């Protein structure tokens, strides 16, 4: 009796009560509506519905067709932006793929061919060697060679051209905004909420207005990519500049540096290693987005994947998907090596001796250019040598489906029946009014009354936009996926932290998983489980697994050694050490991992709309196919609101726990 009473605290009673009422209401909402004949209980009354979507669409229409800023129209502005982006993009396409021509159409005369495949690989190898060593050079070179040998060169170069245009714009723009925010508290206050929102609004949502403003094509894709990849650079820049040691700033001031000199000669150079970490992120996000933006005309490897998904061409999809993986690995490792590069004192000698790599690469470019005129195989990788793995993958998939169909189907059905459907029923049954209230109460209890009000308002917005049902499907899919991801990821992370050997492999794998563009995850899932909630869930779990593992490993590793020693000296067995010392202290980190998992799950969930879910993501995707900007933005905002509520609640939980532990 005593023991029981100790476990039932007032706090726990509140939570239990809240869940009980929600469950009951969810279970009987339909009956209540029938009994009271009050349809508003399960449906938001259409009389009060917000019509924000048509307002947004109308505004965009006005912007595109009539907006006029005295000197120029909005159309002129978008055209100018398009021109600025188009120019370097076309140059890179010419350089990497098409070669340079003068004249148009029939009269086109080739002035110079594109860089030969050998020259591009030589360049990649040289960059790898410059950034670290021969090992990295070999890896990067092998990745590019793979693209040539397995027939993905053309698409890969289109994707590479997009990445090479978007990365400098995104990085420079992020740096500029970050510096502004660092120098003026006012700009930072303005940017912070925008950055928060940008991080949570699903990518599809702003593809729609960009599609309307810039039209279908690579330029629109590049604009979307830059917008997507810039916010992390801004954040990293602010953090990096704030991390420059105070003494270095004082040294600069004592030398009489002007504000401009402070920025460009002290702050930015001193923060460069950290800034390079930001550039690495920009590169990876750019690749991710360039793949997704194939939906609005980016072309390249993303388009190949999309096309094969639509045709259910298993082999082609896997081939293009693997090419993306290979490219992601090459870009990630090379840019990471740049971030970790440390200068050592330089060599003396002639230009050739000081720049051996540049000299060799230049030599290769000239040599292959000359040879390429005579031997076509030097200029472009001959078709006859290409190896297509498409049929192999198709056969392999067919074999799996023939031999394991029943097993896979059984697993799928079992999980659907035991987990997915009951959870779905629970969420779908929650009446909107109670849902708003419950969200408010949860946020209030955990994160304070302000957040409670914000959460209720945000949920109210979703309901009032007529998206309650879709939002509940999103919650259910996200909830189940996150639960499974954490269930798998946390033990993996703990294992990785306890055994350094296993840890290297697991964390290495997670690093690689995290560099892969989200699109790639859809391919194997669709092949094995076809479309539906189950496939979506598997893709989301795979995508969102990495942070759960990483934060768990990090949390366990970061437990202060003196506490471990204290535990050991108190006679803890290894098991007790884990359960009584390490895990309780790692809780704040585990919660941060949970937070990241939720964020990634939500962003992936939107992309799984492609495999036929019925959630907010689908709403955004439909808006994209219909080019309905208002619908897309409203549904996108709804996803962002769910993400923001979840983020604040989990962060507050983590902070509360930290405070309790005195960390």
């Amino acid at each position, binding site marked *: 009796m005593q023991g029981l009473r100790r476990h039932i605290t007032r706090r726990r009673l509140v939570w239990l009560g809240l869940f009980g009422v929600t469950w009951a209401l969810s279970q009987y909402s339909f009956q209540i509506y029938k009994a009271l004949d009050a349809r508003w209980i399960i449906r938001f009354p259409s009389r009060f519905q917000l019509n924000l979507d048509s307002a947004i669409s109308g505004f965009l229409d006005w912007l595109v067709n009539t907006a006029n800023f005295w000197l120029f129209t909005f159309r002129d502005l978008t055209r100018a932006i398009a021109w600025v982006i188009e120019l370097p993009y076309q140059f890179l396409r010419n350089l990497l793929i098409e070669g340079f021509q003068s004249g148009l159409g029939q009269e086109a005369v080739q002035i110079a061919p594109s860089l030969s495949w050998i020259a591009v690989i030589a360049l990649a190898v040289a960059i790898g060697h410059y950034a670290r060593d021969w090992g990295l050079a070999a890896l990067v070179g092998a990745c590019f060679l793979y693209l040539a040998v397995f027939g993905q060169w053309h698409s890969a170069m289109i994707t590479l051209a997009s990445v090479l245009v978007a990365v400098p714009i995104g990085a420079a723009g992020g740096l500029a905004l970050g510096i502004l925010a660092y120098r003026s508290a006012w700009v930072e206050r303005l940017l912070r909420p925008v950055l928060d929102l940008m991080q949570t609004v699903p990518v599809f949502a702003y593809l729609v207005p960009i599609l309307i403003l810039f039209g279908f094509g690579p330029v629109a894709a590049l604009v979307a990519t830059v917008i997507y990849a810039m916010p992390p650079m801004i954040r990293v820049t602010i953090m990096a500049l704030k991390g420059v*040691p105070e003494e270095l700033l*004082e040294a600069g001031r004592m*030398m*009489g540096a002007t504000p401009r000199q402070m920025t460009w*000669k002290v702050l930015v150079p001193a923060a460069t290693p950290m800034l390079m970490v930001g550039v690495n992120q920009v590169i990876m996000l750019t690749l991710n987005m360039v793949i997704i933006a194939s939906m609005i005309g980016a072309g390249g490897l993303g388009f190949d994947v999309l096309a094969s998904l639509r045709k259910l061409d298993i082999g082609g999809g896997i081939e293009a998907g693997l090419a993306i993986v290979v490219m992601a690995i090459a870009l990630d490792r090379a840019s990471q090596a740049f971030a970790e590069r*440390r*200068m050592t004192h330089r060599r003396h000698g002639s230009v050739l001796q000081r720049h051996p790599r540049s000299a060799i690469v230049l030599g290769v470019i000239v040599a292959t250019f000359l040879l390429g005129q005579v031997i076509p195989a030097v200029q472009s990788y001959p078709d006859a040598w290409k190896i297509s793995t498409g049929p192999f993958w198709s056969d392999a998939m067919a074999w799996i489906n023939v031999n394991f169909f029943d097993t896979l189907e059984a697993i799928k059905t079992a999980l659907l029946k035991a987990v997915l459907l009951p959870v779905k029923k629970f969420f779908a049954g929650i009446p909107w009014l109670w849902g708003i209230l419950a969200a408010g109460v949860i946020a209030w209890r955990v994160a304070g009354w302000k957040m409670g009000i914000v959460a209720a308002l945000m949920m109210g917005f979703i309901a009032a936009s007529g998206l309650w049902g879709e939002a509940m499907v999103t919650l259910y899919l996200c909830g189940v996926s996150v639960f499974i991801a954490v269930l798998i990821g946390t033990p993996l992370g703990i294992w990785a932290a306890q055994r350094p050997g296993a840890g290297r492999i697991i964390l290495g794998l997670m690093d690689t998983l995290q560099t892969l563009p989200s699109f790639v995850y859809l391919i194997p899932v669709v092949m094995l489980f076809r479309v539906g909630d189950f496939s979506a869930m598997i893709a989301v779990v795979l995508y969102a697994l990495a942070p759960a593992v990483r934060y768990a490993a990090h949390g366990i590793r970061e437990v202060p050694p003196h506490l471990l020693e204290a535990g050991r000296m108190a006679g803890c067995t290894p098991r007790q050490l884990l359960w009584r010392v390490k895990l309780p202290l790692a809780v704040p980190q585990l919660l941060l991992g949970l937070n990241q998992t939720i964020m990634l799950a939500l962003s992936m969930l939107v992309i799984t709309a492609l495999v036929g879910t019925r959630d907010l993501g689908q709403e955004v995707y439909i808006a994209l196919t219909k080019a309905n900007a208002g619908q897309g933005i409203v549904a996108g905002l709804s996803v962002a609101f769910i993400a923001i509520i979840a983020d604040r609640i989990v962060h507050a939980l983590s902070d509360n726990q930290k405070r309790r532990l005195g960390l």
Partner: protein
Amino acid sequence: MTTSVILDCRHVWKLYGAGAGALLAGGRVPDADALARASVIGAVRDVNVQIHQGEIFVIMGLSGSGKSTLVRCLSRLVEPTAGEIEFDGRDLLRADEAELIAIRRKKMGMVFQQFALMPHLTVLENVAFPLEIQGVDREARQQSARKVIDLVGLQGREDYYPRELSGGQQQRVGIARSLVVEPDLWFLDEPFSALDPLIRREMQDEFIRLQNMLKKTIVFITHDFDEAIRLADRIAVMKDGMIEQIATPEELVQNPATDYVADFTRHVARAKVIRAQSRMEPATAERFAGDVAHDATIEAIADKVERADAPLRVMRDGAVIGQISARAVIDVLVGRG
């Protein structure tokens, strides 16, 4: 003192917290209780110091005593809440941004505790950096930089990056960098605190050697009383933002103004501080065993005096000003009086 005052700082305050300005309005002098009641932190409280041309002025205090804030007020890296600072006949606190930049470029140099070297520049580029900021062309600035690099004994390391150097070497770069503009006033903010004890000692010797050559006016911050005694012409002891006492090392040891200062001086090897002139008697002996300089420390002359069978003459500028006996030396050595 006959030498001129180069930096004159009068009633300087630095308070942190809201309402700091109001506390000082109308020239009021709030005490520690008044500050605590207003929840204002008094980092520097009513400090008066005069730095003379060519002296080494050491500000000594434990962490949190306000010594770092004070030196930042003197260089206006931190804006004082109240007070006046006159540098080279100019009101430093009224100087506008452009003037301040000009003063710092030409007249001030500073060495930092954590070295504050630019990680992306080589030794040569780091040392030449203040000149680069001033827009001096590459050839000229590298030439000046090489000169000071030789001066601090780092020749051969010009193309290394700071990361590739030891702590002591890094601080030599910091010293060279602050000297390259030939400053009139040289601030050193705990320059040797981040170094190992052995290296610290070596760097102090190096510093003394440099100062004997350069004769700079120096404001030196330290938390190490022994270091202060070793290097200073005058020491200001700080506690809780206020100056407890300003005196030569010798005066400090012989007449500590407060218990706090006495706590520091109690364990100092007095023979290293006390000089012959303060323990001499009138020259009454009939016979002298030799001469000692008036400003020689007891430690330096102890062996000679104790061994002698008669007192030694104490000389200043070639004139006899007194005598010192073995008895007086032994009194100092065993801590009597």
